[in-house]
């Protein structure tokens, strides 16, 4: 009861069977319908998130944001989309036609495919792959490929250099991303996203906040969102690898970026914030959509917040942040989880029963699994806190040393102000 997915599934099966289809044809048709819904959902969402982002950014920067088209400017994105639809598609002279045309399609494809493994509720996941986590990393290859093809085929030096820099950024940040993905896989003992959600009576952000942080930051860099948008820096530079694209082809790159930002929010929610988990979700699976939606929006709000507050980084800072901070941190984190995870801290059923006898409200609120996992979660949290303190201390030492270096240079009269490292080519 209260289960939308089963109801709709049964309804569709009955409907299609009554049209005289065989069982396998029915199955394929349902799969096609689900795929179409997911695809349209993924793209339709962008119409909303672009508006939301402009509105939120406006408020944070003390502006109004879009407010002309429709109530609260909600149809602004629709108007923009129609404008882009009627723009001319210019193909630059000397463009390499085939890769040039495939690139925008690939960039959307690489993001849209992520939605196939996002579990929406207890029984709603488009495809419960047992290698889902690796699948997410693998489909990211389409995005990298799209950038390379776009940059190469445009016959433009800036596009090519921009593309190479994007590739350098994306592949660099993929390292901490994948290393932080290892942590939920280790804790849950499966690569299936549905399995990872089911293994989270206590959200993984409580166990491993450091891994969640690394995942979030490196995902932001993968997407190329501010503060990591130095390669297209819309306010200063020409557009980077998609400089030669116009009209709908350009819109596809734009779309892919916003879709990706939302998809990584959903992934963060699934992998670290318990996905569809919440009160009464087992009885009413439909609630799972709501919980996942809320968690995703919270993460997405943080994405927008970061965009509006953190200044853009330079390319050498971007690479240093990755290789000298995030990668060592995630390596240490994986080692820590590997060692701590082997400590026998899970409570047995008798111990859980004993504790629950004294505090029955805990079982009512969270369930017995929660109690069994609690000591482990607390230990992980403490260890993570210790790691954070050590890292902050090290960062403090580093920052002091850098400041002394700059001060020494200023004293010698070499520079009147801190000199940025030359990062031009």
């Amino acid at each position: 009861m209260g289960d939308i997915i089963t109801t709709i599934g049964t309804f569709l099966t009955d409907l299609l069977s009554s049209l005289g289809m065989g069982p396998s044809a029915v199955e394929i048709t349902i799969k096609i319908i689900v795929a179409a819904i997911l695809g349209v959902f993924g793209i339709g969402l962008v119409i909303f998130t672009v508006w939301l982002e402009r509105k939120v950014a406006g408020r944070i920067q003390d502006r109004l944001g879009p407010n002309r088209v429709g109530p609260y400017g909600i149809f602004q994105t629709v108007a923009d989309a129609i404008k882009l639809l009627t723009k001319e598609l210019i193909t630059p002279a000397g463009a390499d036609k085939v890769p040039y045309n495939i690139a925008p399609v690939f960039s959307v494809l690489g993001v849209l495919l992520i939605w196939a493994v996002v579990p929406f509720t207890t029984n709603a996941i488009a495809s419960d792959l047992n290698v889902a986590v690796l699948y997410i990393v693998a489909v990211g290859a389409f995005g990298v490929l799209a950038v390379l093809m776009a940059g190469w085929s445009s016959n433009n030096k800036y596009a090519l250099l921009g593309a190479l820099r994007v590739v350098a950024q994306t592949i660099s940040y993929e390292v901490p991303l994948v290393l932080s993905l290892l942590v939920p896989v280790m804790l849950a003992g499966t690569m299936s996203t549905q399995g990872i959600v089911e293994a989270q009576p206590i959200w993984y952000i409580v166990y491993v906040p450091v891994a969640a942080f690394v995942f979030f930051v490196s995902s932001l860099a993968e997407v190329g969102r501010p503060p990591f948008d130095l390669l297209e820096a819309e306010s200063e530079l020409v557009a980077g690898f998609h400089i030669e694209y116009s009209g709908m082809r350009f819109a596809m790159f734009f779309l892919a970026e916003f879709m990706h930002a939302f998809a990584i929010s959903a992934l963060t929610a699934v992998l670290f914030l318990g996905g569809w988990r919440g009160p009464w979700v087992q009885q009413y699976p439909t609630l799972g959509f709501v919980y996942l939606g809320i968690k995703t929006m919270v993460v997405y709000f943080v994405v927008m917040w970061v965009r509006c507050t953190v200044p853009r980084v330079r390319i050498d800072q971007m690479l240093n942040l990755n290789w000298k901070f995030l990668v060592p941190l995630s390596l240490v984190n994986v080692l820590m989880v590997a060692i701590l995870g082997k400590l026998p801290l899970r409570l047995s059923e008798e111990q859980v029963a004993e504790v629950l006898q004294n505090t029955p409200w805990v079982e009512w609120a969270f369930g017995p699994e929660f109690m069994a996992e609690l000591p482990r979660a607390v230990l992980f949290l403490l260890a993570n806190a210790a790691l954070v303190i050590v890292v902050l201390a090290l960062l403090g030492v580093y920052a002091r040393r850098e400041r002394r270096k700059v001060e020494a240079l200023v004293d010698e009269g070499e520079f009147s102000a801190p000199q940025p490292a030359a990062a031009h080519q």
Partner: protein
Amino acid sequence: MSINEWTFIAIFLIVAALIPVAAIVLGALLGPRKPNPVKVQTYECGMETHGDTWVQIKAAYYIFALVFLVFDVEVVFLFPWAVAYNQLPLFAVIEGVVFILILAAALVYVWQKGALEWV
């Protein structure tokens, strides 16, 4: 695990490719189409484009790709290890730890050699 799960991925791959294709085709139909030699020129900040597009790039790109490749290869081994982690004896976990330490040695090497500097 079944082939069935992948049937959906195959269908989704086709649908997900058709959506942007449809959008671009629609854009091509709705938009004007009046190319002229000036319009289709390569845009390099208004200057006449000069020389080949394939300028010499620096070797740092190769080094970053190389380090990425190394980490990717090693992580590929760590994923099955992580999936099996809960059932592994302590000794096997230590094997994995040694593996990660070798990976860390790679990072220390490139860091010490200054290969991670962008200049």
